[in-house]
């Protein structure tokens, strides 16, 4: 994809605005692109991401769907097979469970199972994550879980630049890409180059260099992890923060390069602990960098409970800065 060319100044915008700008650009650039999902049009998007697009692009390209997750996701697959470049918005990952058969059994299989005859250039966007006191059925973080499935790509923009740039790359990809937007990020503000565009969706990124420990995270936990790293710096611990950016396929090279340098790692993952992306990163480090480690890799994940409504319980259930700091402190003390 086009790398960002220097010059042209910067603009300040929210993550929400960045996604909207990316949608607008995609709709303008390619007549095959359209957006479909619940309340993306007249309501303006449940997180107000698509506000204004219906007025500008009309109801043929900004399609409000009935509450029928399975058919509109499946129709996205079919429309991609039929030559379009659909962007399907599933309001939140919680509702994607109603469409998961289409994703796992159709989107992920058809290319391979047809002997390579058909590609499915489909983008599915969904909000993900907890932290808004929406309780057990509305607080899932299943992006790492989706990363189990061969045939799909899973990306998790954590920065304004990635919110702005990942959609174009996902659309350029001939295969299904799931974009998970952590709902707590929508109001985050930041500066990006005025001409910011597509960014790669292949590589993890070092968001903060450091030499003592690698903190490996993604999505909604990046901010907490960076805060933890700053705080640790005050104690003289220099943490490197790796943003996975793409959960499937994982960028082993960046992860392992960091861990080999720091010799210690903590994975921070808003998903539940067991059988999550954190375990996978740990497994890869085990397989490929075991002898480089000074201490066992640790993880800070969500507690294994349905996420509760009460503010204090929810906070206790999710990864937080202080838990990250404690995990690092424990790790730094634990080499023998």
């Amino acid at each position, binding site marked *: 994809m086009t790398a960002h060319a220097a010059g042209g100044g910067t603009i300040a915008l929210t993550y929400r605005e960045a996604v909207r700008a990316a949608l607008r650009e995609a709709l303008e650039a390619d007549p095959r692109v359209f957006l479909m999902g619940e309340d993306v049009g007249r*309501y303006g998007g449940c997180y107000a991401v698509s506000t204004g697009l219906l007025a500008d692009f009309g109801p043929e390209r900004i399609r409000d769907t009935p509450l029928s997750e399975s058919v509109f996701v499946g129709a996205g697959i079919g429309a991609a097979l039929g030559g379009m470049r659909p962007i399907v918005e599933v309001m939140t990952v919680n509702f994607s469970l109603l469409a998961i058969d289409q994703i796992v059994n159709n989107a992920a299989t058809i290319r391979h199972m047809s002997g390579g005859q058909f590609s499915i250039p489909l983008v599915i966007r969904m909000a993900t994550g907890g932290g808004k006191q929406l309780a057990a059925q509305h607080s899932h973080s299943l992006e790492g879980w989706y990363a189990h499935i061969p045939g799909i790509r899973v990306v998790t923009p954590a920065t304004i630049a990635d919110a702005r740039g990942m959609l174009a790359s996902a659309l350029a990809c001939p295969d299904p890409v799931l974009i998970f937007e952590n709902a707590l990020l929508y109001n985050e503000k930041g500066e990006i180059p005025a001409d910011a565009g597509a960014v790669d969706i292949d590589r993890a990124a070092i968001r903060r260099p450091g030499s003592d420990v690698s903190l490996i995270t993604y999505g909604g936990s990046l901010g907490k992890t960076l805060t933890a790293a700053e705080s640790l710096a005050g104690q003289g611990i220099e943490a490197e923060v790796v943003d996975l950016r793409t959960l499937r396929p994982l960028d082993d090279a960046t992860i392992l390069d960091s861990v080999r340098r720091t010799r210690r790692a903590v994975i921070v993952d808003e998903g539940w602990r067991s059988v999550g992306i954190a375990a996978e990163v740990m497994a890869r480090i085990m397989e490929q960098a075991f002898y480089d480690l000074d201490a066992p890799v640790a993880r800070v994940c969500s507690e294994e409970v349905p996420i509760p*409504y009460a503010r204090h319980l929810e906070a206790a259930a999710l990864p937080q800065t202080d838990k990250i700091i404690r995990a690092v402190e424990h790790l730094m003390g634990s080499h023998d």
Partner: protein
Amino acid sequence: MTQSEKGPAMPDRAHALDLLRGMIRIRRFEEKCAELYSAMKIRGFLHLCIGEEAIPVGVMQALTPQDAIVATYREHGHALARGMSAGAVMAEMYGKVGGCSRGRGGSMHLFDAATRFYGGNAIVGGGLPLAVGLGLADRMQEKANVTACFFGEGAVAEGEFHESMNLAALWRLPVLFLCENNLYAMGTALQLSESNTDIHEKAAGYGVASEAVDGMDVLAVEAAARRASDAIRAGKGPYFLELRTYRFRPHSMFDPELYRDKDEIEAWKRRGPIVTFSGHLRDAGLLDDAALASIEAEVEREVDEAVAFAEASDWEPVGDLTRDVYTEEDAA
């Protein structure tokens, strides 16, 4: 299948005032919730049923304590009308341990074993299969109970509606399907959601007895719910009521309401269940200012007590976070 009736006879004064009180109770309770949401005492999503109060109040008249209820995320009215304590519901919305779900569920997940209230459900359509199963359990245990299952018209587009209607009809299960058709699912108007907007006709297509009812008329709702539950208890299988109504408030506290205009809302408000029914009662000489004032005072006291209860309730200890993920007993 349709036998929709309008204007059932006015009941005796005590019952009539009970109905009115029930609706006012829900209205004032929710108005207080809105206030407490602004005050950030209540968080998360808050969906008010203001304008739709005739439905829970009317329906619950037909249910016995042994009957079961499955509701949606817009279920304060159902919980209160079912007889759940306003304090426990309010404490739930505060996230306090005195809440009906110990503060873990919040507004969308009110539960109460004592009244067989099997929860609000935040997945649109997600409660219907549960209701089918509850009906099946009652049937297999030869209990004459009804399971009342509330859902919005938006849920009709979900596959689970279809599967649930078919299975309940096929197995003749004692389920009372209650579709609260308030014309919108968030910002999506019915005609953007359904190729056939006649919901009760759709239900009839499954071979389920089905009626369309004026959901703004508490007496009509009560009468229909009685017909329906009588038929169900008589072993005639499931019954479907489409209750035509309107929500006066935004979908949730985050809704900018870009999709409908003020005039439409105002027109429906003039048909509001409380204002209309109060008018009928006054016309019939069953209500005067004093009686209304006394209801309002009683309700205000209850709501105030609910808030006080919620305020006084504790937070669940963080150490209990992982309790009840699994049932605590020696399982194996």
